[in-house]
């Protein structure tokens, strides 16, 4: 058990999972915050309504905190391919490096330079020009998502390549095909919309906590933010569900095993296929039992019609053996971890539905004609607790994507076990895992603490602060 538990491959996998999941707490949040703050500042530039300036400034602070942690955890990702997965880097170098380099050149420079300008030029530019800086940052973050997802999509569904006969490695033959990968253009909308939703839920939730403090001068600020957040979270929760549905259509085609596992299907279903809400999975014996089913719904999910059966994992496993045994041997296990995928999918979709519901109810309670939300304390508390929910949903989504590719690191071409650095040792990996884990715990804790503190101070903390502290004989006291 210990030998299995501490193998180099599993330690390297654990590290990749840990670092990407932690990184991916902050990435969607930052992408969403950048976008929503850009909208706030644009509204201010157009309508000159000061509350939107206050919102851009206040939520901008939370954005910057998240952005900082996002950047530093992102550097790990780039180094990690070389450090832990050098065989992967050798095998995939011809395809994989290009999107990473383009991501840096096209996206990282835009976001890092313009966020630097945006942070320090509130008083220097006209509102419209200043809003341009945050738009550039926001566009940078989205471009970054495109390129890293282009790289990931190749791993899910390789396109535009051949295997070089002499080296046995991947060789790029059509860069256009890598960029036009159907996986990419289905996963990107889903990820980006979920990112917007994540930030919107946090804004709504933090505003709800803000309203609970019942400070008169902050009421308008937090009410406007709350409505803004709720509208955004409702819209983007619906849209990201739609985008997820489109992505599912692609997954059924490219990775049927992933789809069968998210639905916990071992045997081929009847026609039309029923959708299992919950079931007990016996992964060892490849059996599922205790299903609670809704007839016909899986056919709708899978094919958008009321007919058609869905292939089970047993059938797909046989098909994959027939297809790959010649190259990879008979001992491969093509079953992906079914419990992880089955429950991740339910957590992810359940959370999306919950967010839709909560946002909708929140909007009704706070509607302009009859705004009673402050009388419904429980509603504000629910909204406040919901802050954490989209982060779980995002992680669940990535679990499906990444665990569902098992045993491949590059689908159908290269296995995870082949990809690990030959130089890796258990000691090194254990050491780095402990260091990363401790660092992440620390950084995550501090980030949450300072966000909470920022909320606690409220949006008008600095104004009050600077009024008190201005020396009557200093230049600033006489205006600029």
């Amino acid at each position, binding site marked *: 058990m210990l030998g299995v538990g501490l193998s180099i491959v599993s330690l390297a996998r654990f590290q990749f999972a840990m670092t990407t999941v932690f990184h991916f707490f902050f990435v969607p949040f930052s992408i969403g915050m950048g976008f929503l703050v850009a909208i706030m500042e644009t509204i201010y530039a157009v309508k000159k309504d000061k509350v939107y300036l206050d919102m851009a400034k206040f939520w901008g602070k939370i954005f910057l905190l998240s952005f900082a942690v996002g*950047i530093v955890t992102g550097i790990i990702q780039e180094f990690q391919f070389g450090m832990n997965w050098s065989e992967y880097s050798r095998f995939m170098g011809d395809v994989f490096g290009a999107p990473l380099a383009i991501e840096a050149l096209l996206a990282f420079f835009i976001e890092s330079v313009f966020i*630097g300008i945006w942070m320090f030029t509130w008083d220097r530019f006209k509102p419209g020009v200043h809003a341009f800086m945050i738009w550039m940052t926001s566009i940078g973050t989205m471009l970054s998502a495109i390129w890293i997802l282009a790289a990931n999509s190749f791993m899910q569904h390789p396109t535009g390549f051949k295997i070089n006969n002499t080296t046995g490695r991947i060789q790029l033959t059509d860069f256009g095909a890598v960029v036009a990968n159907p996986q990419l253009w289905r996963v990107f909308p889903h990820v980006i919309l979920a990112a917007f939703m994540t930030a919107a839920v946090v804004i709504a939730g933090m505003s709800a906590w803000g309203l609970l403090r019942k400070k008169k001068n902050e009421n308008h600020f937090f009410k406007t933010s709350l409505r803004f957040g709720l509208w955004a979270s409702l819209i983007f929760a619906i849209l990201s569900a739609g985008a997820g549905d489109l992505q599912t259509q692609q997954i059924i085609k490219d990775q049927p095993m992933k789809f069968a596992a998210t639905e916990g299907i071992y045997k081929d279903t009847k026609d039309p296929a029923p959708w299992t809400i919950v079931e007990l999975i016996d992964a060892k014996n490849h059996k599922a039992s205790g299903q609670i089913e809704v007839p016909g719904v899986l056919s709708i999910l899978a094919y958008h019609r009321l007919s058609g059966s869905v292939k089970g994992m047993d059938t797909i496993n046989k098909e994959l053996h027939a297809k790959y045994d010649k190259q990879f041997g008979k001992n491969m296990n093509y079953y992906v971890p079914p419990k992880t995928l089955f429950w991740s999918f339910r957590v992810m979709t359940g959370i999306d539905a919950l967010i839709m519901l909560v946002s909708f109810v929140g909007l009704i309670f706070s509607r302009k004609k009859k705004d009673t939300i402050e009388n419904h304390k429980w509603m504000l508390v629910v909204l406040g607790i919901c802050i954490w929910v989209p982060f779980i949903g995002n992680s669940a989504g990535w679990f499906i994507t990444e665990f569902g590719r098992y045993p491949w690191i590059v689908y159908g071409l290269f296995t995870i076990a082949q990809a690990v650095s030959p130089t890796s040792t258990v000691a090194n990996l254990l050491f780095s895992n402990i260091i990363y884990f401790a660092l992440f715990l620390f950084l995550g804790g501090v980030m949450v603490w300072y966000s909470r503190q920022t909320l606690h101070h409220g949006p008008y903390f600095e104004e009050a602060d600077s009024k008190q502290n201005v020396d009557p004989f200093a230049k600033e006291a006489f205006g600029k």
Partner: protein
Amino acid sequence: MTLSTLWFIVIGLLFSIFLFLEGFDFGVGMSTRFLAKDEQERAAIMSTIGPHWDGNETWLVTAGGAMFASLPMWYASLFSGYYILFLLVLVGLILRGVSFEFHKHAETKTGRNMWMWTFFIGSILPPFFLCMILLSMVQGIPMNANGDAFPKFFDVVNLLSVVGGVAGVLLSLVHGLNFIRLRIEGPLRERARKLNQILYPILFLGEVVFAVLVFLQTDFFTKRFGSSLFITVLIVLFSLLGYYGVLKDREGWSFAGSGLSLSMVIVLLFNGLFPRVMIATNPAHSILIKNAANSQYTLTIMTIVACILVPIVAIYFIWSYSLFTKRINPRENTVKY
């Protein structure tokens, strides 16, 4: 010249630009302890690079990405071979990167102190260990036919690599102080100059020791004597230029001098490496540029992409610097850090 050689040069160029820019960031971070005397001064020093540090660090990310995209065998061998050192570089970069935002939010003296210390430590670890990696690598290390590097403890930690690491840190500090002289006004600026007046002679000594060790421990001077000597002389000359700027109180000259010294260190190493990217103790296992390179097709695409994007990046990058030229007065600093 083949495309793979071109990309070897591009990677060298990217690392040079990175060291020029992030070099002063590192030095600025170190100055929070070596130069600043109180909280206000530390915050002022931090704010000189507030808008820039993230963009500067992106050059490292780009260099790494370019390495992966053009010479992936190098990327794979180097990063997996120097596992622990790269981990320490990462820890430094992480601690440093969060310090700016976290310091802004810290409300107690202890909190602010803590983020200043992470800023300081995070500014020393990366230049030290990056230089150590590079100078260990160029001495030749045990490798196998697959290109996996297995450097032993004394391959990594030896006289040249440690002197190289220390020299990298010292040069970054000097460079950072020169940057502070450009961006700060008042007594702090003068103190930065005074400190550099002391540091430069030590730096010259370090550079001579470094040059002698490179001569003894690497094959740079036997493989290409002329160019290696020329670049070594350039490193010293640029440092002399910096020293001249210190003595004459011309911070522009100093800044250019120390930055170019740093860049030239990379040029020296890349010049000596060529046409190899990894040097193995058994020469048969050394990795050559042509064996490390991606296909012609990929390199062509990357070349086109770089030719379009790099000039655009350069324009807004330089423009962003032009926005922040007003000197900061530590006693009237309105930027909150």
